[in-house]
């Protein structure tokens, strides 16, 4: 546990540096006043010099906390998401980008209990073309899926998922994706895998307001500028125009 915490803190430092380098947001531009200022608050950059009332300087992002998972479930989610979207030469993986924080927050939201889906019965077995017909809620499927990941890993490699070598973790996840792992409360393991996969992608690329895509580095890797108001200057250019990412937070002053 302590090691994980320490690991995280050092990663935090490095992502901050990468972000500053990538984004060029080292001068007191308009963007630095808002939440980005808070994200960067621990540094000695001129992030807070616009803030009139003496707000306490934040050393961490307060959204980096759990509202759904236990710490163990969180770490297992981090490990699994990292295999979906691993750290590489392009930049950070799902773990550093806080995809698991994103997943935690989403599963705690109305989406986790399928609030906008048609959930009335009866539930019949569906043909391939009819979409999923299951009663189980996303939040429950995810937790049962995590349990199943560990159970399957123990059976296959005599180890919890989190302690497996990355190659073996990939083998386990491949079995889940292909429905070769045991059913989860009557549901194909593929369904859990698909949920894990889609939430990981969302967690690295959704706006940082949702807790993932830390410091917009998911966007920076693919040169996506986030949510800017206009591209009339860039849209016709033959050359690629690289713009620093901006999040929804940049629209708060409008």
């Amino acid at each position, binding site marked *: 546990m302590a090691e994980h915490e320490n690991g995280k803190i050092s990663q935090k430092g490095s992502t901050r540096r990468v972000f500053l380098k990538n984004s060029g947001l080292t001068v007191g531009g308009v963007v630095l006043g808002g939440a980005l200022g808070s994200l960067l608050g621990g540094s000695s950059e001129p992030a807070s010099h616009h803030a009139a009332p003496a707000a306490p300087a934040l050393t961490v992002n307060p959204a980096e906390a759990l509202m759904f998972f236990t710490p163990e479930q969180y770490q297992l989610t981090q490990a699994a998401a990292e*295999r*979906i*979207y*691993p750290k*590489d*030469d*392009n930049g950070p*993986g799902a773990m550093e980008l806080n995809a698991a924080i994103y997943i935690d927050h989403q599963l705690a939201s109305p*989406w986790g209990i*399928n*609030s*906008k*889906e*048609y*959930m*009335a019965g009866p539930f*019949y077995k569906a*043909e*391939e*073309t*009819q*979409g*999923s*017909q299951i009663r189980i809620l996303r939040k429950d499927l995810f937790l049962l899926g995590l349990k199943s990941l560990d159970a399957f890993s123990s059976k296959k490699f005599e180890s919890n998922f989190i302690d497996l070598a990355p190659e073996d973790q*990939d083998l386990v*996840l491949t079995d889940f*994706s292909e429905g070769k792992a045991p059913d989860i409360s009557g549901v194909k393991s593929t369904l859990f895998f698909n949920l894990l*996969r889609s939430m*990981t*992608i*969302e967690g690295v*690329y*959704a*706006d940082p*307001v*949702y807790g993932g895509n830390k410091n917009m580095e*998911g966007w920076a*890797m*693919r*040169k*996506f*500028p*986030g*949510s*800017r*108001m*206009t*591209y*009339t200057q*860039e*849209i*016709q*250019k*033959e050359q*690629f*125009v690289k*713009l620093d990412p901006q999040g*929804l937070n940049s*629209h708060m002053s*409008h």
Partner: protein
Amino acid sequence: MATKLPKVPVVVVGMGWAGGIVASELTKAGIQVVGLERGKDRNTSDYAMGHDELRYQHREELMQDLSKETITHRNNEKMRALPMRDYGTFIVGDGVGGAGSHWNGQTYRFLPYDFEIKTLTDKKYGANKLKPEYTIQDWGMTYDEIEPYYDTFEKMAGISGETVELYGKRSNPYPTGPMLKTPIMNMFEKATKNLGYTPYIIPSGNLSESYENPDGISRAACQYCAYCENFGCEYGAKADPAVTVIPVAKKTGNLELRTHSNVIEILNDGSKASGVIYVDTITGEEFEQPADVVVVASYVFNNARLLLNSGLGKPYNSADGTGVIGKNYCYQVSSASSMMFFEDKEFNLYGGAGALGIEIPEFVGDNFDHSEVNFIHGAGIRVTQYGNRPIANNVVPKGTPSWGAEFKDQSIKYANSFFPVKSQGASMPYRYNYLDLDPTYKDAYGKPLLRMTFDYTEQDRELVKYMSKVTHKIAEEIGADIIDTNEEQGDFNVNKDTNTHNTGGVIMGADPETSALNSYLQMWDAENVFVVGASAFPHNSSFNPTGTLGALSYRAAEGIQKYIKEGGSLV
């Protein structure tokens, strides 16, 4: 027991394009209208945080809440229909503006050929070109008759575009010039010109320049911000009922707009309606709103469902082909495409607009000879630039895994270096593709859900095979490093994202035996009921439907005024 309200001249069900246009035209003419909308009221300030891909595109913020109402689907009559529990294939709008708030803004006219498809097909290819199961029929109105209404809709919405020689004759040019041309559009233009085609910029409701419409509504030009499809436009640049026709209707003082009001039944005696029953979705209270004229202007699905649940009009029966409500449900076929990947080119694909693109007219309708092929009609072949939002756009060459190290590397490598030549094909009606009431599943108010029986037909599959070759040829001429062509149309899958252009179910025509409505969208079986929307299309063309829906809405508004003055059947 429903609370009975005072009678009004006109009640309109649904406040999207169809309901908004009807409300605007009637209230301008001094007629009192009550507009009932099941969702919330909406204006541009709702979109201050609109550039949120997760919330709007993947959590369907602007769409119908499926926990309250959905459809059930089966591919054929042998299957048991099951509910579409979450969104996959198509999306259904909700709230003031309806689908007109979340649409992309691509605003075409249908072809002269579309309106007389049966006559023209028989004349040119003989009566046996299609099997008898394909229930194509003329629309009861020609292109020349609908042309003035297209013109009115385009002027109201400020459609941007350029005249296309191969399409129907226009009485006026588009009110605003075409959208900007981007490098990928230039590549498509050059390649298709080399191949002898005549590319044109897709007509757009996104506004290429600032514009004031005949109602005095001023809107600013599109910023190419890339958040159109599934999103509302915070600038009001995109034509949306909530920034065009509905404010006009409100300003007259003759519109009473009631939101959170879900109509569940049209009261009628089989030949005339006396009003509607609706539920206040916040309090659960029921109301009866009596009216002289009932305008049903909700989405395609609910238009058909409301009539079926109200016992209005004769339900379609696939066993003998009789009846009309639920008949000729159509979709579109979009599977033919060629994805291109470039090793050393990067495009500014983060920018875009919902109706930013370029297309060729050579493969639509009967613009090419169908003597040697096993289908009629065709497809628009095009390149578009909507803006590649990162959750939705992780396109990798065929054979790449969908997760893990290689996936991440490839999806980032090509993030700004891919685009498809794609197609959007017409959908012909088929005897066994239709809408009726589900025998099992109910909505939140206890009313049966709509059941869709639909699969792609032989005609659809042949069309896709043909069009995929066209997309491949153009992709080769463009010269990509990798071209992945999709050649087959699989089975219709309610969970796979393809197209959201649903049509039919309450169709117009010249004959009460084979259609539900006359060309004013007035019901043959109930003269004071008008059913407005793409539900009136006897088939679906290859073009996006909103232009034609808008034109028909203006036609219906004219018919309703005529009916209020004269009464009786208008045709």
